């Protein structure tokens, strides 16, 4: 167990935990745009910046991103120090300059009293804040179909060579986890299009619902060793089968009880 102080309160944490996890557990609200429980912390948006010090540091204070900083004994953390608030405000202001038309960023900026960016707004902005969640989640899923390309201010998210990505299975994990909802996809009938790649959706052989894409099913069956035929039924029908099975087991055990 690790003992530390956050905003004046002594708290316990497990070794290896990151500061942000403990801070959120305490119910303290600090913004974090690139953080997601499912993937490794990244430290790109820098909004979860906190001030840290220790009694033994002779007054020296450090500024670290809490999503990446592991808990340490005797650490004294201030999540709302003046300098931290000012930095967060500037960072939001910069994000707003990048994505002046993003409702999510506008809303966050408003919480900091910013209605218009004080910097030069990007005119052809696409509302992507470059948090990298889409690429990291895609990596985590095991596909790595998209990545960041270029560097510096020209950095953007793209499939290889800006062509429909060969490794994309159309699972939508990128689009659904995008905090500013900028990855477009369309779905109609049994077709789905994302990253300009067209996919066929499997139709449940029993109820006719559309389930996942054929490519996703093939990939999952390969990666997890599940027979491909499993994906011919939708989740709801699988649940129904499971429930019926459970029912049969229950009825059987009742009969056994009676017999004994």
């Amino acid at each position, binding site marked *: 167990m690790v003992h530390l102080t956050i905003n004046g309160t002594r708290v316990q944490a497990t070794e290896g935990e990151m500061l942000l996890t403990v801070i959120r557990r305490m119910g303290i609200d600090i913004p974090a745009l690139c953080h997601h429980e499912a993937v490794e912390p990244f430290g790109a*948006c820098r909004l979860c910046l906190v001030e840290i010090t220790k009694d033994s540091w002779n007054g020296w204070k450090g500024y670290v991103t809490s999503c990446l900083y592991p808990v340490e004994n005797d650490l004294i953390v201030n999540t709302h120090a003046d300098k931290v608030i000012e930095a967060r405000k500037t*960072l939001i202001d*910069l994000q707003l300059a990048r994505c002046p038309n993003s409702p999510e960023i506008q809303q966050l900026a408003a919480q900091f009293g910013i209605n218009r960016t004080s910097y030069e707004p990007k005119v052809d902005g696409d509302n992507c*804040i*470059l948090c990298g969640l889409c690429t990291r989640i895609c990596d985590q899923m095991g596909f790595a179909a998209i990545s960041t390309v270029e560097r*510096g201010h020209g*950095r953007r998210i793209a499939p290889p060579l800006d062509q429909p990505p060969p490794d994309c299975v159309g699972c939508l994990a990128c689009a659904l986890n995008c905090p500013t909802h900028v990855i477009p996809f369309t779905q109609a009938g049994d077709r789905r299009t994302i990253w300009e790649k067209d996919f066929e959706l499997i139709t449940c052989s029993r109820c006719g619902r559309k389930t996942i894409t054929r490519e996703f099913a093939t990939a999952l069956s390969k990666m997890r060793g599940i027979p491909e035929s499993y994906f011919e039924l939708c989740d709801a029908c699988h649940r129904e089968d499971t429930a019926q099975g459970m029912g049969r087991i229950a009825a059987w055990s009742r009969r056994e009880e009676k017999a004994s």
Partner: protein
Amino acid sequence: MAITRIASPKALDKLRTECQKEQQKHPRKLMVCCGPGCLANGAAEIVSEFKAQLKKKRIKGFDVEAMKETGCHGFCEQGPLVVVEPQGTFYTRVKKKDVERIVEETLRNNKIVDNLLYTHPIEKKTYRDYREIPFYKHQKRIALRNLGHINQCDVRDYIATGGYQALAKALTTLSPTEVIEQVKTSGLRGRGGGGFSTGRKWESCARLAERPHYVICNGDEGDPGAFMDRAIMEGDPHSVLEGMAICAYAVDSSEGYIYVREEYPLAVQFLQEAIREAEAYGLLGDNILGTDFSFHIKISRGGGAFVCGESSALMRSVAGEVGEPRAKYIRSVQKGLFDKPTVLNNVESFANIPVIIERGGKWYARIGTEKSTGTKAFSLVGKVVNSGLIEVPMGTTLRQIVFDIGGGIRDNRPFKAVQTGGPSGGCLPESKLDLSVDFDTLTKAGSMMGSGGMIVMDEGTCVVDVAKYFLKFLVEESCGKCTPCREGLYQLYLLAVKISEGLATESDLGKMEQLSAVIIDASLCGLGKSGPNPFLSTIQYFRDEYLAHIRDKRCPAGVCKALITYEVDAQACDGCMACIRACAVNAITGKKGEVHVIDQAKCNKCGACFAVCNRHAIKVA
């Protein structure tokens, strides 16, 4: 010549004697500098001409083997350079047509070709021995010890000068702990700019139980105008390999990488050749010098991203991932390449190691200042008379470097600033010229040591323009991962542009200072954290110049195009029409022999008229 593996340190001694004897066959040697600067000026042509002439003329006691193609000799300003050793006869700006004369007069008749010698531009004194030239006299060369004196990648040349003796000494007489102790005693601090104690870095790696340990050499020199590491990798690759092998022995590593940028094709080629040769001689690879220590080095070629010089980005790049930094709350010594303990040192740091081991840490610690020991290589460039590659003891003042070694400012113009530490370093004004060049003093003054780029500026340089240039460089070279560096530096750059166009207000300066503070606190890696330095160090020392742009809409140095006009000085103009011909937009009118006039409405301020007028009749207002 058949190569036999050197099976023991004794065999190395024997080979050394043999190599020295080979050298003595030629009492005089001809060194043709093939450093980056001289090559750019045609050194390759001179080498082939010498070969042809030597073959043709058949000079007694002097054949093609007595000619060496060396690494950078240092005095790039005067290149291509040809040096006759041991006399030190120093021929400058040698052209193909001079080769025959050098062969005939100097090599055959032992005479000096006077008009090829170096003449001091101010004192007008001609020097017969290069060691007397002020540019060389004030230097002390340790890391650059072999540059200009040995064949670029000839292991036998290196062995003849005592190469690999330090490795033999370490392997046979010192324990790994003793090696680390020597490096710690030497006080050597990382020459890549970080300035972290090399010995302590090795010690923390050696102590970690996890295996394997890796040794990486950072050859991703990316500062504009810097070429120290390039010169070492191209001119003396074995010193780097030997330094790395000693490090590997000290930290118990058997695998090392040299990360070199693809833009240095010669460095890659020579390092590869050097590795191959060293392996053939048993100086690298399995069972080095017959001991049970093995160490393999691979070359990892980078795409030339500036950010890949940052340790965590470099290691990701070596591992084949995107070169982006990660937060270093866990140091790379603990969790480096492939998440294993890793020692990462710069080229120049490694090049110093063999000397430290051979002569002892105490000897090295006596050079330089108390907290910054030893020497430091710099590439001295910009508006200085003698640009080139230099190495001086730490504690040398900026004034000594710029004026004694550098020979002062070109065309006798007043000195304005010297920029140290690369793009994220800073500009120091005349009042700071007497500062001692060491890690702590430069940082305290708002600049930094960096890897050793030193750019001298005269009064024709506008600091706003300089800040703008370096900010643009950093905006383009930022990896773009974190918001403050990617967006913050970009906005800082836009504000600098606004100032240079005369559109900024004084409140913009305050905004820039506030934004800079946030970028420093909030950025993920060192590139972002030092990113605002080009602005901060110039505003610290040249606030008046910024204010002239803002308040008076005037660029005192006459650089910022939006704020200057070109005018004809009627007194000086003789109506030669040169400027009229040079003007691409036909903005200048006038007849031959009459004073010309520039139409300000048409002028696009390209400066062509200013450049062609040899009567200095075009004035910048």
